């Protein structure tokens, strides 16, 4: 066959494949009926298909003509160079063509299991790029029937538990079985499922896409000769982190369990703490490439159905190829992506999730991430900590008051310092003013530069402390904070009082329990400092006004961010301060839960004073 004939044939096949969605050696069926018919044909169908495609290609003269035309538009010159070079070029072209053919789109979602084991094997080799893909295991064996039935199992090494595969799949089918079963066709899959496989979760599937979803998530697929169905067995068994202690939301009183990276462990932790049959866990897949599982959890008899529908609507509408962790999903579903404040509460504590679920919130957990998202969130919920509730009311309130002060210190301290030193020196008592003036006498920079330099150094230390390995991180923090600060003062770059200001501000920002809102406040601190440098307290006042405006204008899943204070809605005694647990009789109004009441007016049945209050 001449080169031109080979080229023409290749191009013709290429065009036919492209338009007919068929490929050499593989069966691609869009309709189930077609699939059934072709499954009967088994191995022969492959050859027939090949012929059929060639016939179709030949029959379509116009197309062929067009192809020919295309092929001859730019005729390949017959080179007068030595033959070896020309051959080399041809070989390269052929290789490229083969590569392009291999890259032709393949649609497993339209594919059905064939009754031919070889065809199925061919599909899987194509889908998983076997044998190039080394962690995909395709193990062929014979089911110990009379006569023996050829089959193979498919699983991913590292995701599936090999012990389960050996003991609960291969052993029963290969060794323990000794029956003269006369079962044919699709019945064999059902028979094996019901009689031979002891796995707790075994399903019979026909669509390739469903099978792939199982295998990609640690399942094992069993293909059997002559059966147009596939058995899938739940064999998840990858290495995972055990349930550990919370890293960010540590408490002294209360549980010390935190989520890990496995979705089922996380949902299990929540179910363990909330033993209620009305707790619903809906699963949604997000990301066209990683198809990550996203769990939406809520209490069906309590949560507002509109809120649930809105959460589902936002998540299911996401069209992207990859969503790795909850932080990425958060950015896809939040109301105001350009605002500094977060509008979704992120937690690593199952007990915190449960406390919000029983209030009527919805929780979203992304597989692979150790955090849960709670929606909607308000400013006050972001400033609360789970320990506020685990401690007695006075202690909890003490912590909350401390946190309110910390909030204002974290936002305003550097800006107030800049204002006073730059514009309002009269506020400072004379002795203190002299001390500050003396300490600043050796500093050659303006106050705003000093503040920004130290703020930047502090943020740098914080970031470095987080990024470097654990033991060194602490050392970096100490070295950075103490030695650098001391050296900066001695070098006359900053004044000693500024070290105190920055240290207090840093401590206050760490006292804010939510990591995201802490970031938001730290960012605002810089804005306030700039405003103070230009306009003193007047600038701070204007900044506060704009800050407040932005907060009142924000919403989280339809709930105003400053609810229940602004707008004022009905709520229990748990906003800034909290009342005794027995006085929290109603749930928050802004969620509009299906049941407002949490407990009767007299929740402590043992007290004699029916009007509540102290027991007699």
């Amino acid at each position, binding site marked *: 066959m001449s080169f031109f004939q080979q080229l023409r044939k290749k191009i013709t096949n290429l065009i036919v494949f492209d338009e007919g969605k068929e490929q050499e050696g593989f069966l691609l069926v869009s309709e189930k009926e077609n699939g059934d018919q072709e499954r009967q044909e088994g191995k022969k169908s492959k050859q027939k298909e090949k012929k059929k495609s060639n016939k179709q290609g030949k029959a379509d003269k116009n197309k062929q003509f067009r192809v020919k035309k295309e092929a001859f538009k730019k005729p390949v010159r017959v080179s007068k160079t030595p033959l070896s070079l020309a051959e080399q070029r041809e070989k390269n072209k052929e290789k490229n063509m083969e590569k392009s053919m291999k890259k032709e789109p393949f649609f497993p979602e339209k594919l059905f299991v064939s009754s031919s084991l070889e065809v199925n094997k061919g599909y899987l080799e194509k889908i998983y790029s076997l044998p190039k893909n080394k962690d995909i295991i395709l193990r062929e064996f014979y089911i110990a029937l009379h006569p023996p039935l050829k089959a193979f199992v498919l699983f991913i090494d590292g995701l599936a538990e090999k012990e389960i595969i050996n003991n609960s799949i291969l052993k029963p089918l290969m060794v323990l079985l000794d029956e003269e079963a006369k079962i044919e066709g699709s019945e064999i899959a059902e028979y094996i499922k019901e009689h031979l496989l002891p796995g707790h979760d075994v399903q019979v599937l026909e669509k390739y896409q469903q099978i792939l979803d199982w295998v990609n998530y640690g399942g094992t697929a069993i293909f059997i000769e002559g059966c147009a169905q596939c058995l899938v067995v739940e064999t998840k068994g990858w290495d995972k982190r055990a349930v550990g202690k919370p890293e960010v939301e540590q408490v002294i009183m209360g549980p010390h369990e935190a989520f890990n990276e496995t979705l089922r462990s996380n949902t299990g932790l929540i179910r363990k703490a909330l033993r209620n049959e009305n707790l619903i866990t809906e699963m949604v897949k997000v990301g066209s490439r990683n198809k990550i599982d996203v769990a939406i959890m809520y209490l069906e008899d309590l949560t507002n159905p509109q809120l649930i529908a809105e959460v589902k609507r936002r998540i299911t509408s996401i069209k992207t190829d990859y969503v790795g962790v909850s932080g990425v999903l958060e950015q896809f579903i939040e109301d105001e992506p350009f605002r500094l404040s977060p509008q979704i509460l992120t937690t690593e504590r199952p007990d915190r999730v449960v406390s919000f679920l029983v209030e009527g919130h919805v929780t979203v957990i992304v597989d692979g991430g150790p955090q849960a998202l709670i929606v909607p969130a308000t400013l006050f919920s972001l400033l609360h900590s789970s320990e506020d509730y685990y401690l007695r009311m006075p202690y909890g309130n003490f912590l909350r008051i401390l946190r309110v002060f910390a909030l204002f210190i974290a936002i305003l301290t550097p800006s107030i310092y800049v204002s006073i030193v730059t514009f309002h020196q*009269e506020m400072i008592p004379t002795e203190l003013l002299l001390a500050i003036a003396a300490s600043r006498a050796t500093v050659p920079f303006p106050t705003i530069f000093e503040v920004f330099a130290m703020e930047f150094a502090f943020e740098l230390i914080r970031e470095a402390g987080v990024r470097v390995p654990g033991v060194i991180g602490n050392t970096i923090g100490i070295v950075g904070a103490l030695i650098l600060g001391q050296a900066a003062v001695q070098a006359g770059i900053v004044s000693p009082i500024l070290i105190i200001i920055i240290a207090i501000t840093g401590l206050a920002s760490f006292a804010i329990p939510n990591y995201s809102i802490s970031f938001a406040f730290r960012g605002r601190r810089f804005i306030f400092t700039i405003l103070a440098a230009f306009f003193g307290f007047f600038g701070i006042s204007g900044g506060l006004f704009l800050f407040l405006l932005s907060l009142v204008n924000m919403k989280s899943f339809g709930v105003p961010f400053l609810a229940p204070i602004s707008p004022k809605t009905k709520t229990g005694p748990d906003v800034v301060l909290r009342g005794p647990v027995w006085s929290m009789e109603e749930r928050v109004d802004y969620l509009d839960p299906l049941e407002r009441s949490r407990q009767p007016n007299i929740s402590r049945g043992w007290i004699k004073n029916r009007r509540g209050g102290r027991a007699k």
Partner: protein
Amino acid sequence: MKKELVGHSEAAAFIIIMIGAKAFLGYPRIVTEWGLTAGWLVVLLSGLISIVFWLMIVGVLGRFPGKPLSEIAEVTLGPVLGLGINTFVFLYSIFGTSNHLRLFSEAAILTVLTETPVIILALIFVLTAWLAAYYGIEALFRSAYFSFPFLAIGVALVLLVLYPYYDFKMLLPLTGPGVWPVIKSSFWGTSAFGEVIILAYLVRYFSFKPERLKNVGVFSLSFVMMFFIAITGVYLMVLPVPASSETLVPFYQLSRSIFLGHYFQRVEAVFVIFWTFTAFISIAAGILVGAIILQDTFKLPSYRPLLPALCLLTFSLAFTPLDLIQTVKLEGEVRMSYGWIPTFVLPLLIWAAALILRKGENKTNDS
């Protein structure tokens, strides 16, 4: 477009801040000039008269449930006269806002930013007000409600820590210049409470029932009256009559007088945050209310496109007076003396016309 709605608490806080903002400008000085040692009495009587006026205005609103005063004016007096009255009220609103803009800018220069050009401060006020008004009525009312306790605590703190200087003898004689001058001044003094009429123009933005509007107005007026009485009383007790009529920014002067030992003195700058915050809300609210009146008058679908023009108008009008003294005179001799005409008399005229023409008695007449 989403319907903006505000509750009764937010409405009350908003009105209190709108009226109360005057306390940080020259109001205590003006009532002291009018009533001398009985300045607090002038405030009390003005407040009571305003409450009576408000109850009469609620009568007008009751005849036209759910309709704003601008629409009632057109229904009652016809489109031409109604348009004229609404335009007059709008101009008064913008005039008041621009005067406040200038006064607050000048006050900031007098107190804390002595080197800053007044135009820069006015520009900051106007741009912030533009943004706030653009966020909408919900955001502004909610901001007012959220900040209200902080502002109230700030003011109360100033008044309380001045207790070493309280001299009750400074309030004598109780009737000041005499009964009749006090009553006459009290009538003029109702202008200070005129912002309560905003409730009548924003009826359609309230989520509560129209019947509650009366309570909201009465509560706001009563609260702000007590607040004014407290400030004026303390002002008179701390700064006796001759000195009290010479201060341009009385509240700042009060906060400057604080001396509670070596480490709690000269803290007036801290309280600048409170009164400038009130100024930001007040100016933004003035522009927003002006835009809403104009929107209702000309039946426009949205008020937001009007905001840039109104901001520019307010800014330009603010610099029409040559200097601070002229602005203070304008505030005292025009706005505080005759402000009751557009705020109280016009609505009552509309009421009278509605009674005479029998408008608003039933639905057929409304149309």
